[in-house]
């Protein structure tokens, strides 16, 4: 396996690990927001806004990782 093969392997593994991390991050977040909305429907809108902002922050970190993976794959 040459260095390009290793880079692709790293990019593929990196994407997998990133997606795993995002899943474990956004999953509980959305679950908690839904729960909050079910318990107190009048606060559902606030919870949703906060959820979207939190999801965006998690996603931002994930996208940093994705960009690194793309750089590895196009090296």
């Amino acid at each position, binding site marked *: 396996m040459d260095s390009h093969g290793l880079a692709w392997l790293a990019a593929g593994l990196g994407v997998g690990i990133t997606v795993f991390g995002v899943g474990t991050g956004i999953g509980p977040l959305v679950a908690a927001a839904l729960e909050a909305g079910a318990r107190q429907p009048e606060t559902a809108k606030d919870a949703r806004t906060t959820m979207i*902002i939190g999801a965006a922050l998690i996603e931002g970190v994930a996208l940093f990782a994705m960009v690194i993976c793309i750089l590895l794959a196009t090296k």
Partner: protein
Amino acid sequence: MSNDSTTTQAGIATAHSTEAQPAAQGGSVFKEIFDSSLGDHHGFYLFHYHLLDLPYIVYDRDSGLSCYTSKQELLNTGVYELHHGHPIVKARYEAQIHAGKPDKEALSFAHPTFDASVTNLVAYQWLAMLFLGAAFFTAARKYKNNIMKAPSGFQNALEAMVVFVRDDMVRPNMPTVKIADSLTGYFVALFFFILTLNYLGLLPGGHPAAGAIGTTTALAVTAFFVVNITALRVAGVKAWFHHLLGGAPWWLFPIMVPIEIVGLFTKPFALTVRLFANMSAGHIVIFSLIGLIFFFKTLWVAPVSIGFVVFIYFLETLVALLQAYIFTVLTAVFVGLAIGDHAHEDHAAAH
């Protein structure tokens, strides 16, 4: 029907030609797609049709500032050459770059010092500005002409969205209504500009200008200045410096101050990368799904592929709106955080 089969054959031929490249350069296929469809170009294209020549503006330390109205003029003058159609290379280094083994001198001097050419994505941003200018000035004139009438038509749609930006994004995040209203103009412009860029990029043949890191960097730089200038203006210089301590006890300042200073810059940086990556990610997924057809070399994959592409496309129409929302609302949140609780006089009035 015959037309369909010829395109397919052409497509398979392309697949073969890309496959013929040595394995070590496999990444370059991806890179080529990346450059040709997501990257920036000189000249305005719709699909592969060259519609318009855009001016080349190039500054170099040796030859000074030069402007060309078209590609032909640039090539005729002979100072610069185009390498593979995109990057501008000085004519005397072109042969080396083309051969693929530039020496040290060529690497550092082959490209002009500063390339300020009007490119494809800049043209898309101008299109967005023209569209927004036309839309908002039309709506504004309608307000002026019928002061006492209820808004109607397009004006009504714009009003609904502007009020949404003001009431759901800006006001909840600012300490006072006065500060919120002084910044609403900026946030409305930000939201609608990103939204228009994203939807222009989703039109058939369009390019997503927000999918280029330069565009999003520029937007985030404006956000950086708005965040800090508002904080300095509203909360004062002392409070701004106090924020660098992050609310920790004073003896923690050797740790907190560097962290907070880095934090000042990571926020706009995260905005940059989030918008850029989201807008190019959808297009990359679509390319990859189309690429599956050529990867498997059979027509039977096509319906599956196209089905997924349509799904991703609709997802992207959602993402285009969501990213414009997120960029705007996060900027508003950052402004609110930077001001902190230093301007609470008419907080009750905000609710």
